[in-house]
């Protein structure tokens, strides 16, 4: 690689350089000033994430650019995903900053590790060979394990971190195992070369593909590789759970889309069955298992499993429309999910974020504003029109029906009804339960503002910007595949 190539490559990874630079400098500042610098680092980290998202969007190429000797590829698809990831992570970082400030638990590493995770996600979405893919996944995962166990003194948090780590390591092993098969049977780690080999696939390549998909399905929390999600969401501090429910999902979905549509495009017939099964299982598991939850964070975990099922349903189409639908789905899923977590943190119970559905009893009578926010957010997650979530489901149905996957769409419709059952249960508690004397108090602050922003995005802002979102997703897919 000549220095010219290097300079060219570096010019395309400015967002990543910004994040990496922040992490390195931030560590230095933290080491010098200790916990006193937490506030500053939180603010700068949020700004850096915003800036990285905007940079990725502004500085996106017309055609895909292979950089670092083909290890990474910068394209509009990745730029869209990076922007979404960065904004979602910035929102959850703000939630975390407020949360730990309230708990008097100021550790300057929190923003640094969050940004490190985002850096890993950025590498994931731009990966163009198996090595970059694995490095990205691991960078993101290692940061996530630490974040899950953030409250070291809390047994549940430590348990969440340990569980996430052990199961995550297993899935990384599967992923790496699959990568080695793919490399062995295609002779290259480069996606382009693999694509050429995948036109006439053998059993070995197929085996590798299935292993890779299993590893990625674990990272995105799709059934039957979902069992870690409820436990980790429940144990991790609430803002960390919000982060897990948002940004890494985007990265995993985009990486999955890239794997399916680029190196393994020739094996569409083979992987479609796998993805369809993952999608159907996720939608059903997420819908049925969520029905019996009493803990809001566990409920949100099952909600995310079901929603990932819908994203996979879109991807199973194997068409550009499928990738576009997945992008739109994830873009409308994020505000609702982050919004729900923000409400959980804005409503405080003995100084802590609320955790159980029962804590919401009678909110409709005492804090009608929060009840209205929850109504919009949960109906959006349930996919009831005209809220944002409906358009994601509509696009997912359209993509999968366009590919002739009628039975999968019918399974999706049934799962959506079942899942609506538990969203309604939350709302029934909010609106219909008698107002019990309770010490749940709303707080104004960052979390309340973010809840309002999330709900406003679900309705009515999305209806206004829908044409813009569709155009952006369409352009991203068109320029990349």
């Amino acid at each position, binding site marked *: 690689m000549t220095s010219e190539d290097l300079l060219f490559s570096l010019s395309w990874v400015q967002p990543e350089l910004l994040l990496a630079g922040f992490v390195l400098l931030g560590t230095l500042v933290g080491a010098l000033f200790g916990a006193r610098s937490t506030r500053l680092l939180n603010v700068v980290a949020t700004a850096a994430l915003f800036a990285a998202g905007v940079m990725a969007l502004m500085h996106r190429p017309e055609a895909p650019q292979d950089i670092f000797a083909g290890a990474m590829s910068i394209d509009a698809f990745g730029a869209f995903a990076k922007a979404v990831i960065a904004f979602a992570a910035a929102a959850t970082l703000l939630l975390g900053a407020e949360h730990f400030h309230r708990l008097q638990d100021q550790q300057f590493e929190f923003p640094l590790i969050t940004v490190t995770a985002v850096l890993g996600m950025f590498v994931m979405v731009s990966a163009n060979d198996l090595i970059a893919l694995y490095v990205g996944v691991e960078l993101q995962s290692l940061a996530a394990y630490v974040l899950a166990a953030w409250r070291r003194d809390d047994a549940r948090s430590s348990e969440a971190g340990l569980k996430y780590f052990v199961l995550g390591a297993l899935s990384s092993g599967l992923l790496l195992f699959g990568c080695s098969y793919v490399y062995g049977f295609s002779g290259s780690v480069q996606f382009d070369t693999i694509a050429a080999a995948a036109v006439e696939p053998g059993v070995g390549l197929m085996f590798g593909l299935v292993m890779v998909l299993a590893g990625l399905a674990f990272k995105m929390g799709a059934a039957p590789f979902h069992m870690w999600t409820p436990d980790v969401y429940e144990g991790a501090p609430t803002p960390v759970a919000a982060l897990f429910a948002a940004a890494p999902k985007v990265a995993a979905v985009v990486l999955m889309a890239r794997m399916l549509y680029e190196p393994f495009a020739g094996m569409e017939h083979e992987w479609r069955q796998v993805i369809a099964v993952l999608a159907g299982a996720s939608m059903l598991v997420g819908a049925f298992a969520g029905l019996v939850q009493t803990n809001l964070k566990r409920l949100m975990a099952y909600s995310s499993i079901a929603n990932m099922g819908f994203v996979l349903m879109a991807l199973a189409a194997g068409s550009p429309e499928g990738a576009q639908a997945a992008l739109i789905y994830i873009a409308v899923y994020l505000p609702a999910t982050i919004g729900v977590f923000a409400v959980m943190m804005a409503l405080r119970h003995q100084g802590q974020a609320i955790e159980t559905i029962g804590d919401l009893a009678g909110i*409709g*009578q005492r804090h*009608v504003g929060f009840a209205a926010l929850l*109504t919009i957010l949960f*109906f959006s997650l349930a996919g*009831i*029109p*005209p809220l944002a979530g*409906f*358009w994601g*489901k*509509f*696009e997912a*149905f*359209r993509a999968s*029906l*366009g590919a002739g996957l*009628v039975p999968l*769409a*019918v399974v*999706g*419709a*049934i799962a*959506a*009804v079942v899942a*609506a*059952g538990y969203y*309604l249960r939350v*709302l*029934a508690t909010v*609106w*219909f339960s008698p107002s019990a004397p309770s010490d749940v108090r709303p707080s104004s602050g960052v979390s309340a503002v973010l809840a309002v922003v999330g709900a406003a995005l679900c309705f009515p802002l999305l209806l206004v910007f*829908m*044409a813009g*979102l*569709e155009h952006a997703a369409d352009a991203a897919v068109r320029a990349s595949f």
Partner: protein
Amino acid sequence: MTGFPWLSILIALPVAGAALIMAARAMAGPAGPGVDRGVKIMALLVSIATLCVSIGVLLQFDPANPSFQLVERAAWAFGLEYHVGVDGLALSLVLLTTAITPLCILASWTIDKQVASYMILFLVLETLMIGVFCALDVILFYLFFEGGLIPMFILIGVWGGKNRVYAAFKFFLYTLLGSLLMLVAIVWMILTAGASSIPELMAHPFTANAQTWLWLAFFASFAVKMPMFPVHTWLPDAHVEAPTAGSVVLASILLKMGGYGFLRFSLPMFPDASQLFAPLVFALSVIAIVYASLVAFRQTDIKKLIAYSSVAHMGFVTMGIFSGSEIGIQGAIFQMLSHGVISGALFLCVGVIYERMHTREIAFYGGLVNRMPVYAAVFILFTMGNVGLPGTSGFPGEITTMTAAFLVNPLVAAGAALGVILSAAYALTLARKVIYGTIENPQLATIADLDSREWVLFVPLVAATLLFGLAPWIIFDFTEASASAIAQAYEAATTAIAAGAHP
């Protein structure tokens, strides 16, 4: 077609009013009787303004023209359009909606719990209901159709009776399952026909096999909404538990969405399948008419009795629609409008005594005529309308739908006629037990007759019942063009199948 955006204003007005109330409520400070009163008056004014706009629409409308009028069309996202317009069928139901809503708000004057939220939800619901009938883009239609679940869920659950949470869930989930299957079918249709506008979809010939599946998916949604036997079980629960105005909206307007859907989608878009399944619909209609009437006979709760009678009356509507003839479709539309007035009025009648005594048990009442002569007269009039007595608006709809059914299959008409007799049996029994006799329950000794607000409520309904009963041609003339257009298209398509010309 450009011009004054009548329909957009009509659709947006209630929700704009709701936003205004929300803003005013936020500024008014803590709740109190004065604030609540202000909110109620604002909501009433908004709904009356909407009624005025809908009358403006009526004046712009030419009933002799069978095509969609006052059309507005603009591109939207996802290849969809904002596309609205009305024909005689749609506009008659829009007018029903805008006329019933002010009465509902007036009937809700006694609400004292979270008044602002209640009124806001009600106005949002009105926007969604008007939108359903005006939408000419199939996804826009779905948006309004399904969106109505949200306010209705909260209205039943917060302001409903004892078992309200169960009823709210049942209502929501039942309807949602049907609707999502319809959504899958709608998306498939858009992909296949390459268009999402309703007039273009009507013109697209779907293959006979596709029609069968699409018809079933739409049937899943509309049959639940209608409601038809055997998926009617959510209705008695929802009716009984909903607040009075909620029951009125359910009976008068929301149930009509099912019939409207059959007329707008099933019949014109899937004529082959409609013909194929018509015997099934006839069978279910007759079962609904007879079975629901028998069940109604055994009820001890007044609201539940009226709810089952609604199921029976909707059986006439489906029977008329799937006869496929102009007279049947005319009768079905008439029956929907008449049922909207009469059953809405009956629920208001129940509301009057429920507000006074807080019970709907039939056994509790008796001899009301002694203390409430005016109320008794009103109640008997609407009971007669419910039975289908000539001279009330209940009669023309039943006789025309039965005639249409007789022309297709005399046995079906005979079954329906049996239902008419049964309806007289349960309705008159109800009147006898509640209204006549002597007052035996000491708690009723001081019950008061209608007050001035209730007079205002019932006068328009009584007038409409008598007017449409004595001069049914007002409605028949208005809906003739669109009904005959639907019937002719259906006949042309089914004749083509009989001749073997259709793919």
